[in-house]
């Protein structure tokens, strides 16, 4: 996976994770372009499209689009499952997650993502295992709500 984006139907970016070194300017350009392309898709269209030299896999969950860019040799169907697994993790952690949770707790969303994927690949295929690690790490933080 090259990168993952989460954005709303209004085109507001909620999360961006880049797994390759890219200049800030290029990132902004790509995000803008890709958001435009994906938001223009009609509901009946399939979840895959070609964009530049990459394959884009996207899925909408309520008001949020989850969008991954994968390479030629990657399996699009399993990428859909990866996205779904991430959503499940968020859901378990926040309890019926909605967009507002991710807006107000974006840093936690990143922590969960970083416990689930590294360098674009899955670290652990067990939901329980990932959630437990997050839980333990949260406990390590001082009780005082720091931020």
């Amino acid at each position, binding site marked *: 996976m090259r990168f993952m984006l989460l954005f709303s139907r209004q085109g507001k*970016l909620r999360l961006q994770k880049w797994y390759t070194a890219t200049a800030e300017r290029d990132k902004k350009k790509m995000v803008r372009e890709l958001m435009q392309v994906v938001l223009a898709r009609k509901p*009946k*269209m399939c979840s895959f499209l070609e964009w530049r030299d990459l394959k884009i896999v996207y899925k909408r969950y309520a008001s949020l689009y989850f969008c991954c860019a994968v390479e030629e040799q990657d399996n699009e169907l399993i990428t859909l499952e990866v996205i779904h697994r991430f959503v499940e993790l968020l859901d378990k952690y926040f309890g019926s997650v909605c967009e507002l949770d991710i807006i107000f707790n974006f840093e936690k969303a990143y922590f969960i993502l970083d416990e689930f994927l590294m360098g674009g*690949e899955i670290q*652990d295929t067990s939901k329980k295992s990932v959630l437990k*690690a997050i839980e333990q790490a949260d406990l390590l933080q001082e009780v005082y709500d720091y931020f």
Partner: protein
Amino acid sequence: MPAPIRLRELIRTIRTARTQAEEREMIQKECAAIRSSFREEDNTYRCRNVAKLLYMHMLGYPAHFGQLECLKLIASQKFTDKRIGYLGAMLLLDERQDVHLLMTNCIKNDLNHSTQYVQGLALCTLGCMGSSEMCRDLAGEVEKLLKTSNSYLRKKAALCAVHVIRKVPELMEMFLPATKNLLSEKNHGVLHTSVVLLTEMCERSPDMLSHFRKNEKLVPQLVRILKNLIMSGYSPEHDVSGISDPFLQVRILRLLRILGRSDDDSSEAMNDILAQVATNTETSKNVGNAILYETVLTIMDIKSESGLRVLAINILGRFLLNNDKNIRYVALTSLLKTVQTDHNAVQRHRSTIVDCLKDLDVSIKRRAMELSFALVNGNNIRGMMKELLYFLDSCDPEFKADCASGVFLAAEKYAPSKRWHIDTIMRVLTTAGSYVRDDSVPNLIQLITNSVEMHAYTVQRLYKALLDDISQQPLVQVASWCIGEYGDLLVSGQCEEEEPIQVTEDEVLDVLEGLLVSNLSAPVTRGYSLTAIMKLSTRFSSVNRIKKVVSIYGSSIDVELQQRAVEYNALFKKYDHMRPALLERMPIMEKTATNGPSEIVQTNGETDSTVLDTKHPPTITQPPSQGNDLLDLLGGNDVVPVIQTSLPTKPPSAGGELLDLLGDLSLTGAPPPAPASVPSVPMSQPPFLLDGLSSQPLFNDIGTGIPPMTAYNKNGLKIEFMFERSNPNPNIAVITIHASNSTEADMTDFVFQAAVPKTFQLQLLSPSSNVVPALNQGNVTQVIRVLNPQKQQLRMRIKLTYTYKGSPVQDLAEVNNFPPQSWQ
């Protein structure tokens, strides 16, 4: 100074902003506060401030002044600080900033921290954005962690190692010992990441690949793990919709693919498990289909037995019937890749594929179209063409050009009769006439010329089409040309194929003159119609009218028209005796052969030259006596027959069009001088004809009697030429190049290109591979055929491109030292 506001407070506040300006103001205010807080070196609230900064960064505002603060957070002892610090580093820093190197020491310390979650943070950060320098410095630490018994750390270390290898491939070796018993782990996290690591190593290095195949016996291990996954009962921890750890299954299948590729033993060892997965996986949910998809990809890529391949294609066929459009999309993409090698098996699913032309999704339609063209053959041409023409009628404009070209190509190859062929062309021109490519006009003209018995029918249909609609330029151009040529047949009502229409000379001239004055006509079209009118002067009796028209355009603003008109005028006045001969009916044009496989390549849009093989010899319906092998050599992608037609598309040249008319009509072997009708083989670099890779493999090999020569030897890359005379035609020299690499790293993406002077013709066939293995372990061979009818001294310019140790390399060289026997 009051405590900085909390993160969530800030988010709430910013969200109340009603305009962009209001938001910007709030952000600026907060940034100022944060800046002064940073200046005061406030340890307590640094974390909070950086978190706020990250939020503002996500909204699109600059946050670079927080970079150093992230480093300070990482160095802190508090876990909260580290967490935000590392996140900030991943979001704000990248290898372009020198500042990131300051992280290296912190990461090193944290990799050895007593708390595994801190170690995890460090591994994650390194594994996501570590630069080559950082990777070099810290690879040792990662390798150590790869051998730990703590599975939490082991799995992260494995993925971190993957990143290190991607950044610094030379370090791959050092991770080898640690991989020894990775696969005997029970923990799925470790298993998954280990498979990813092994995949990365095998993909990058052929040495590693054979090591893992032979020494480590990786295939049986993977087969065992996969088998356990399938056979094992319900495991709640890894279950997804009834399937046990699909993610791991998919990764294993992918690694098996790499191991089994071009290796008979490995492929055999995995045959059974692949069959098992293919038949036992649940297909009701996406997960199951994801696994099946990966299985199909693997089966098609390894040396599997034919039964297994048929099974795979049938799975794809079932996918095509699935309600889920994602599955259909994936099936079409895969079928497109396999249609060359398993043509017959894919044919069985033809009707389903054709149904996909009616799908609502654009990507699915496109793929279905490409696949349909690939499946057209002599047996199904009528049925397929009906569907494809229907598709052409109703499809989006973005498809029309490609579809039209595809129809023309297919019709040319498989037309069951001339009448059918012309009807098909007419249909395309009338429904998608403005989308056909420019080069199809000369093609069609040539086709029509050669269908002698259909002239009357053709001109009649074209005339009727013109009456309906003159907006589609290619249609109008072809029609004008035909009317110019066969207007006499039109007027005399000689049509056999259908009811002849009654039309007078004046009516015909009205139509042609209408084209000249219409706003819809492009300048090129006007040229066509003027010339057509001129030609009718020898076929019609109303010569005066024609003379008048021609003289009017002698003062046209359009230079092209003016020149033509002036010259035609001259024909009337001073050279009237030549006129009949000059404007005579065109003779049958010899067509240059088109290569069969290259059409498949074109319509697929994917050039996989290693896949095409002799199963598909060129199938040309033209008479075989194309005589000129030399024109055969112009094969290449996007081949379109080169036609030496003078009239419409040729720009006016000095010396008068009259003489050029004569000159171009003679069919010598020389390449056409200045035709706009030349295919996309670029002719823009006189005096060399550059040719790229073409699609036919060939078997001619070592030279006989002519000594080999070294054409190029630089930077460890050596290219030798071996010669042979082609038996049927002694003017053709067959050169086999052998490329070898004496350096210690492979040269990948190796592409050899050659160009020869204009008097020669060149054909490059597919190379044996595009990786030149290091240390002279193997050669890349490729065959070049050079036609040298004038027996001139052979010279060649070659261009080499390849990737060496991750960087692209390019070189040009002249080859002049050909042995005399190779060209005499």
